[in-house]
C-alpha cells in the first residue's frame, strides 16, 4: 500500500476498502514477487485502487483497462496482470472488451467490484442495476434488466469465474489467489455496498443495511446453475456466491504456441 495516499476517498460503508485489502493480501500470499505484479484500473470509485497499491500500476481511461492490460500481458507474459475496476467501467462502457477478453482467454485477472450503480458520477444506473431499482437516472425505477455477470463471462469462455461479497474476506482473498494461479482469463465479481449512491435509494437505509442483506441472503453454491445466479437486490431473493467455474482450458498463449508450432513444422 502507498500509506501516504491514505485515508482513501471512499465513503463510509463502501466495500472497496475491503476488496482492495483482499487483493493486497492475495498478492502478498502469492508466489509471484510484488515487483512482478501489475495493477490496472479504469475510471470510477474503484479506479482509484491503482493509486493506493505499491506495485506498478496504471490508471487508464474510462472502460479501457482490459484492452490496456491485454497489450501489457501480450508483450510481458511473465507479469501477473490484474485489472481492478468497477461494474460501470468493466461491464457497461467496457462490456465489449470484457467478453472479448474472456473469449480470448488470455491470462488476465479481472476483479470487478459491483455496487450496482455509478457511484462517482452521482449514482446513475448501469448494466448491473437490477430491474426496478431506483437511481438518479431511473427516478421511476430501472426499466432494463441487469447482466448476470458469472453467466456472461463463463459463456464468453473464461477459465475461472467467481463471486463473493466484500464481507467474505477470506473466501474472496482465496479466490483472488486462485485467479493468480490459473492460466487463462479469471474473473472475480465482488459485490460491494454503495450506501450513498445505491443503498439509500433502494430500501437499504445505511451501509449496515446493505451489508446485513449480503450476510443474511448469501448462499455459497460452487456448482450453481449460472442461469440462476442473477441478482435482484430484493429483500426476499438470495445472493448466490461461489467459485463457479475453475476449468482447465488452453489459454491464449498455449493455443498460440501450439498452433504456431504445428504450422511451422508443417512448412519444414
Amino acid at each position, binding site marked *: 500500500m502507498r500509506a501516504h495516499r491514505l485515508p482513501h476517498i471512499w465513503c463510509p460503508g463502501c466495500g472497496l476498502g475491503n476488496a482492495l485489502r483482499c487483493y493486497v493480501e492475495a498478492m502478498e500470499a502469492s508466489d509471484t514477487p510484488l515487483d512482478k505484479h501489475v495493477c490496472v484500473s479504469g*475510471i470510477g470509485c474503484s479506479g482509484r485502487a491503482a493509486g493506493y497499491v505499491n506495485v506498478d500500476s496504471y490508471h487508464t481511461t474510462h472502460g479501457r483497462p482490459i484492452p490496456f492490460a491485454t497489450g501489457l500481458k501480450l508483450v510481458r507474459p511473465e507479469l501477473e496482470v490484474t485489472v481492478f475496476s468497477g461494474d460501470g467501467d468493466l461491464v457497461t*462502457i467496457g462490456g465489449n472488451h470484457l467478453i472479448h477478453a474472456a473469449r480470448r482467454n488470455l491470462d488476465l485477472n479481472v476483479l470487478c467490484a459491483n455496487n450496482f450503480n455509478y457511484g*462517482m458520477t*452521482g449514482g446513475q*444506473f448501469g448494466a448491473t442495476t437490477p430491474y426496478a431499482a431506483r437511481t*438518479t*437516472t*431511473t*427516478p421511476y425505477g430501472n426499466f432494463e434488466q441487469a447482466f448476470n455477470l458469472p453467466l456472461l463471462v463463463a459463456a464468453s469462455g473464461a477459465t475461472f469465474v467467481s463471486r463473493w461479497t466484500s464481507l467474505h474476506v477470506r473466501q474472496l482473498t482465496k479466490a483472488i489467489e486462485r485467479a493468480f494461479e490459473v492460466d487463462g482469463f479469471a474473473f472475480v465479481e465482488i459485490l460491494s455496498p454503495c450506501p450513498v449512491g445505491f443503498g439509500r435509494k433502494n430500501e437499504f437505509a445505511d451501509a449496515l443495511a446493505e451489508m446485513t442483506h449480503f450476510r443474511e441472503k448469501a448462499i455459497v453454491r460452487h456448482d450453481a446453475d449460472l442461469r440462476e445466479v442473477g441478482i435482484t437486490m430484493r429483500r426476499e431473493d438470495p445472493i448466490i456466491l461461489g467459485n463457479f467455474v475453475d476449468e482447465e482450458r488452453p489459454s491464449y498463449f498455449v493455443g498460440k504456441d501450439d498452433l504456431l508450432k504445428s504450422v511451422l513444422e508443417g512448412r519444414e
Partner: protein
Amino acid sequence: MPTGDVVVVIGGAAGDGVASTGQIYATTCARNGLNVTTYQSYQSVIRGGHIWFRIRASNEKRYSQGDDFNLLIALDQSTLDIHVPQIAPPGGVIFDPSRHDLKEEALPPGVSPLPVPSQEISMDVSGKPIMQNTVALGALMYILRLDLKVLWSALEKMFGRKGEKVIDLNKTASERGYEHAQEKHETFDFGLKPTRESKPIMSGNDSIGLGAFAAGVKLLAQYPMTPASSIMHWMAAHSSKYGVVVKQTEDELAAMNMVIGASFAGVRAMTATSGGGYSLMVEATGLAGMTETPAVIVEVQRAGPSTGLPTKTEQGDLNMIFGASQGDFPRIILAPRNPEECFEVGWRAFNLADVYQCPVFILSDLYLGEMWRTVQPPDFEVPIIRGFMANGGEEYSRYKMTDTGISPRAIPGQPGLMFIAGSDEHGESGELISDILAGIPEYVNVRAQMMEKRMSKLETAVKEMRPPELYGPEKAEITIVSWGSTQAAVRDALDILKEEEITANSLEFCDLWPLRAKEARKLLEGASETLIAEVNYTGQFDRLLRVETGFQVKHRLRKYDGEPIYPMEVVRKVREVLHGS
C-alpha cells in the same frame, strides 16, 4: 463604503452539505430580488476533499463570481485554515468554536470572528447535529440584514419533500442562529437592497435542458460524465411530465447513434457529454453529417486531455469539435455566454439542426454549466422551425440538388417517400455510389456534386448566424475579445476599468461556426487596441479568428490551470497592455 455587492464563501468537507447550504443561501438572495452568481469548487463527487461554494449577491447585475469575498461560513477546520487569510475587509467568519479552532492572528485587518455555537443549537433543537448549517445561515441573515422569513421560504423549497416536521425544525434552528447573532454580533452594511421581486435562478446546464424542452425535444440519450450529467438528471426528473424519452446508454457511441436513429425517425433528439465522452461520438458525428440527419450535441468542456481534471473548467475542446470526424461536412457551433443564453441556444440548436440537416454543437463548459445565476424569466413561446419537409407528389429524392443545398426530408413510414440513407457516398436518390459505380466518370461527378451540395448549406446558414456582440462604449481604448463563458470575467472587468477611468469594450462571440467573419473583421479593425481572453493553452479561438478574418488580435490572456478567468486578471492584463504595468 457600501457597494451593494457581497460575496459569501461556504466551505467544508465533501459530504458536509456545502452544496445544499449554498443553494439555500443563493435561493434566499434570489427571492430577495438580488442578483446572484455562484461558483463551486470541488474535487470529487465521492466523499472526501475540500470543497467550497461562492455566492455573490448584488443590487446591480454582475456576471462573474467576483475576485474577493467578504464573509466565510466554515463547516470544517480546513476551511478556516485555507480561506481565512483570503477574506477581504469589511468581513467576518462564521464558525463553531466548539468544533473548530480559529487562529486570531490569521484574520486580516478589518475581518471579525463571528463564533456561533451551531452544533449546540442544532442538538438543542433537533437532538442531532445535522442542522448546524441552517443555524449558520440564520446567523448570516442577521449579519447581512436580510429577512429571516425569506430564508424560511427557501428552506421550504429545499426540504419540501421531507415533510412539515423537518421544515419546522430547520426554521427554529435558523431562528436560534439569527437570535444568537443578534445578541453577540454586529451587522455589516454592504448596502444590499432587497426587493419583493423574486428572481428565477438557473444553472447553465439546467437552462440548456429547459431550452430543449421548449424546442420540443423528444429524446435525450446520454452516458454519465461530469460536468454534463446534471443535464440528464434534470431532464430525467422532468421527462414524464413533458413526454421525453431520457435514455442512459452503455457508452457514448450508443448515445450518439441513438440520437441519429431517433432524429431519422423524425423527432428532435439530443445528447450531452464532456470532451472525453465526445471523443467516442466522433465517428457517429460523421454519420449525421453524411446522412444529413439533424443532431444536437451538448459538449460541456472540462480540463483535458484524457481524464484530465474532471471537476475543473477549460475552453479547450474547440479544435476537436471544429475538426471532429473524417472528411469535410457542415456543422454549426454555438458557445453560450451565460445561463440565459444557454436557454436560447438550447432551442435555437434544434431549429438550426432541422433547417440545415446537420450536427449542431452547443459548446459550454464546467464553469458555465454549474454556475447558478439569477435570470430573466425564460419565454417558452419559442419558434419551432422543422425545415424543408417532403410532401409527396413527384418522384422523391432525399438528397435532391437545390440552390441552398438543403434537400427535402422525409420520415420513415410516409407513403411514397421511401429512401436509403447511407454512410457511404450516395446520389440524389440515396442510392450508394461507393461500390460498383465509384470511379466511373459520371459518378466522379456525382461525388463532387454531393460534396458541394452538403457544404453549400453553410453559405446559407452563415446568414442566420449571429454576429459578435460589441458590449460597452463603441469607442474604447481597448477591445477585449472572448467567446462563451469568458464573457463573465470580461464584463465585470469593464466595470472595474471604468472606475480606473479606462474605457474598454467587449467583443463577444456566441455563434462560432459558421463565423460571421466580415462583421468580426470590421469590428476588430475599428478597435484601438485588442486583447483576447480564453481558457486554453494554444488560443484555439484566437487562431480560428485569425484564419477566418485575417486579423491578428494583438495581445492575449490565456489560462489553463483549471480555473476560470477572474475579472481582476483581465484588469491587470489591460493595465499592462495600456500602461506597461
